[in-house]
């Protein structure tokens, strides 16, 4: 059984520097993926992300290790592992940012599914129990943008 990798790309009308901040910093990460995140955006740094609760509760917490932090070109990290992340015991998420005109082509790949896919899927299932897509995120997004406007 070989499940290989997930690859996605999307065009974003924002400069690579802006997109890099959104994909690589805990403050932004918790707006588009986990419920909470705590890590330093530097190669080799470790931290945690959590689903369906805050970071202080032990439930649904996943460790992450930053692999590459190369602004504004590439940000990658490993997650879904126990103890120390290695090439074979984790999922590797890589964001590549390519400038296109005034915007950015964002490429995401997630690899490591052969061994780790089931565990990731289980975590996602738990995540989906707590959120149902835009019903949850849209109401959050407006105050989030308002806050960004206020802070330089």
């Amino acid at each position, binding site marked *: 059984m070989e*499940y290989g990798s997930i690859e996605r790309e999307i065009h974003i009308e924002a400069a690579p520097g*802006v997109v890099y901040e959104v994909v690589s910093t805990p403050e*932004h990460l918790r707006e*588009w*993926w986990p419920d909470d995140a705590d890590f330093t955006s530097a190669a080799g740094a470790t931290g945690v992300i959590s689903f369906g609760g805050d970071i202080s509760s032990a439930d649904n917490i996943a460790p992450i290790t930053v692999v590459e932090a190369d602004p504004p070109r590439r940000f990658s990290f490993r997650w879904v592992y126990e103890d120390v992340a290695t090439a074979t015991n984790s999922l590797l998420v890589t964001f590549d940012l390519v400038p296109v005109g005034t915007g950015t082509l*964002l490429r995401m790949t997630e690899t490591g599914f052969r061994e780790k896919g089931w565990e990731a899927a289980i975590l996602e299932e738990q995540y989906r129990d707590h959120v149902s897509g*835009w019903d949850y995120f849209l109401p959050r997004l407006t105050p989030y943008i308002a806050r960004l406007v206020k802070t330089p």
Partner: protein
Amino acid sequence: MTAAIDDDLWSAIGDPTRRRLLDLLLADGGGTATTLSDHLPVTRQAVAKHLGVLDRVGLVHATPAGRERRYEVDEVQLARAVAQLASVGAAWNARLLRIKRIAEAIQRTREN
């Protein structure tokens, strides 16, 4: 299929030994607890227990083979499990859309 059955399906394949068993059964076209335990660092009894879990969620089916039971993978049920894994890919679509909206909102506020 109910949600409860899906939960059982997920916990059945959440175990690395059981995933290895499925791999072996697919590669060999089937097997018994004895033949499977030859390939794994666990006892025949432990393999039999894991096969029982897989059997209960319908991922494998058993037929009598002498004093043992011969197991084969249920490809339809396995396909269901794989389809659920594919939904992880759909989750990334939604995440990238959120990244796009957040980044574009920041870009607009900086330009204004």
